[in-house]
């Protein structure tokens, strides 16, 4: 079993379909003039589910999320949050939805606690309820120690925590997070991921989270929707997507990965010359490809690779990751 499948096992499997979805997109369209930023997007997310919303730059993720957050209105179609239409009942949607945009500025001369206090007031919390809300968020995000720190001096990681805290101030049932991990160092990323997992598993919240850092999403999401050029290419539970998508290589091939000490170009040249190898993809110091042959053939392949003077340090079969699916279904369309 790969590492990725073990991490997802800590999350509950997606709830059975009879539970009503908390987020439901119904043939959503959003056009900017002739640009079809969101073009017939439909999917559902259920309580306790963390759905990854994956797509290349300009795919329409932010546009879709802004519509969900009632910051924009669809050209056609509708979206429902907790059963409320974002077009007809924006006020109801706002009460139960927390939205974290991909970037937001920081007020000057405001410290952490004043910042949370302000948003608690803005959501209509009074007196003890307001203090409790702030307390709850400080505890959850572990920002208590920084309570008096001016927010424009917070580090990126702490800012994102504060942003998540602000999103949680009115204890929304649904969270829409637009690239929350962008620009975070690995440690901050892991911490943020743990917070988000907690929200879904412990508090049964519905989370829609966008990113193009696929490894990160595949670790926290139990379902995903892949969008490109405004259209959904695949959506559903992780396993369903993995099973359902068209394989990269031809039928009967095995996905292999080779890691080299240096000179990945040499490896690439060599791989491209081999007859049984297809779908070669090169990343920093390793290559992934499809190989048509049995295990004996694989052993032979490794041998000839070493004979060709390639400094192989690892050679192994590979379970398909979300990234493979992503690469398989997207076409690199930009608009």
């Amino acid at each position: 079993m790969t590492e990725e499948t073990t991490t997802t096992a800590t999350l509950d499997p997606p709830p059975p379909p009879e539970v009503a979805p908390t987020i439901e997109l119904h043939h959503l369209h959003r056009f900017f003039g002739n640009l079809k930023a969101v073009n017939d997007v439909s999917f559902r997310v259920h309580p306790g589910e963390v759905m990854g919303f994956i797509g290349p730059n300009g795919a329409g993720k932010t546009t879709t999320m802004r519509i969900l957050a009632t910051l924009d209105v669809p050209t056609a179609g509708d979206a429902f949050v907790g059963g409320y239409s974002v077009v007809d009942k924006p006020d109801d949607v706002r009460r139960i939805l927390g939205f974290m945009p991909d970037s937001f500025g920081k007020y000057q001369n405001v410290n952490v606690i004043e910042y949370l206090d302000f948003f608690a007031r803005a959501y209509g919390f009074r007196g003890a309820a307001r203090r409790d809300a702030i307390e709850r968020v400080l505890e959850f995000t572990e920002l208590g120690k920084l309570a008096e720190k001016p927010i424009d001096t917070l580090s990126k990681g702490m800012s994102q925590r504060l942003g998540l805290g602000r999103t949680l101030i009115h204890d929304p049932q649904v969270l829409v997070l637009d690239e929350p991990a962008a620009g975070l160092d690995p440690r901050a990323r892991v911490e943020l991921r743990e917070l988000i997992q907690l929200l879904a598993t412990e508090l049964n919240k519905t989370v829609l989270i966008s990113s193009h850092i696929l490894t990160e999403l595949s670790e926290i999401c139990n379902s995903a929707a892949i969008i490109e050029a405004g259209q959904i290419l695949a959506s559903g539970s992780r396993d369903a997507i993995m099973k359902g998508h068209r394989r990269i290589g031809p039928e009967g091939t095995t996905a292999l990965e080779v890691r080299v000490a240096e000179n990945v170009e040499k490896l690439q040249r060599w791989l491209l010359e081999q007859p049984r190898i297809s779908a070669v993809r090169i990343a920093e110091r390793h290559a992934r490809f499809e190989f048509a042959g049995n295990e004996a053939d694989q052993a032979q392949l490794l041998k000839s690779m070493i004979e060709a003077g390639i400094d192989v340090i690892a050679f192994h079969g590979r379970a398909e990751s979300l990234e493979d699916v992503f690469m398989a279904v997207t076409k690199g369309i930009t608009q």
Partner: protein
Amino acid sequence: MSESDFINRWAEQASDRLNPILVKETRQALKSKQFLATFAIMLLGGWLISAFVLMSMIGANDESPIGKNVFPWYFTLLSFTVMLVVPFGAFRSLLAERDLNTYELLNITTLSPQQIVWGKWLSAQVQTFIYFSAISPFVAFTYLLRGVDFPTLIFVLLALMFASMLVALMSLTFSTFARQRQAQVVLSLVLLGQLVWIMGASITTGTLLVSRNSIDFSDPAVYWGGLVIGTYYVALFVLCLQIARAQLTFESDNRSTGIRLSGSAIFWLTIGWLSIGFHQGYFGGTSPSTNLATEPIYSTLSVLAVFWGAVCVFAATETETLSRRVRGQLPKNPLVRLIAVPFLPGGGRGMLLAVGHLAALIGLAFLVQRSLHGPDRVHAMNFTSAVSCYIIIYAGLAAVMGRWLRSATPLFRPAQTRAFAIVMFAVMWMVPNIFTILRGSGRTTNELLYLTDPVHSLVRVSGGGPWAGKIMMALSIAASLVVLLNLRTMLRGLAEVVLLREPPPDVPEVIPDIEPVSSDMRRGVMLDSAVAPEPSTTS
């Protein structure tokens, strides 16, 4: 519980009732360098002026009252802060929310756009209040120096405070128009220029009033004037608030009704004051005068026409169909809906608003005309009708053009239509005049060629010359034609609201047909909401 604890708790409970933005901004201001610096400059300036005055008093040996000469210095200091620093700060603070992307965060809270504007405005007023308090000891000092009239002094300070309140709101409203960066820079400069100008004007006026002691508080005209100014002040305040609110409201929400209602209020307010003035002037004396003082009536009507024309062009160029959100909020009673029609968003309903109000105005003018005798009565009636025709023609043409342009390209939004319409009218105005200049031989004798120049035609119409009748005829025909061109849209706009009939979209259909949302989907996740299906707009 210690005393400070108690005070803290009390302050917190009190703050619960306040606008959240006010609380936040006041906290920020107390920590902000700009606020502290302005406050320090003010106090320092006040002390320096006072010290200077005291020194000069020691030197001088006459007992002449010098309060008059000192007051302008303090007043300038105060005007600088409350007419320039505070309004510009309010402008910047709303712009900053947009710049920082924090505006959207506010928007998705349960705060309404109106509360956001109020919060910003109230924060500005807190600062104004602090600056006023800081200057008051110095002003009292001025009074001790003699030479200033106490009621006048208080009046001037109050007037400055009210002026600063309105100017702060106008600056906030102004800032809601600055969406893009370039617009922000340009608008900042424009506003700064305006504010400097207003500040200069208020310093001059205030200083003059105090130095001349020129307000005679026993004259009833002062109170009448105050009443007129007061009503316009309130109306303008509400209008600004509505514009700012509309600017901060989503496109799919109702961004029109507030502006239409406050515009209509100013329209009727003007008609009301005009009627009172007319009544006083004409019947106020012992015997009814035979001559109508037409000049003030014409100029008031002209200003009103410019204002109402702007409201009508704004309303008539809106997109037609009601958004689903607005439809959902329509009153249930069809009769109430009928009355509300002209005030609901949509270009066709905008034309109904224009036509309705102007028809009422012409009707009134007709009634007035019947009660008069002099030769001016016909001219006044003509003037009113001609002005109304111009408004209908301009608003109606803009509406037709807007619909046509929108059907040609979806890139054309109402804002572009309005800008385009204004440019077009300006060109239409200039063309006959440029032609005249090119001909070099003076005006042609056919006055109808100048029909697109409203000032020229209105002068002819109200002068009652030989062409007046023909110009009136031409204008009426043009206005009727424009109304006819808009008739279908107006009727559709009426039917959409009263009969809840959805007109076909005025944007070409580019969206594929979408099957209606199944009831099962609308039920959503809340089990309790499963019982009640989403209220449909036709109920």
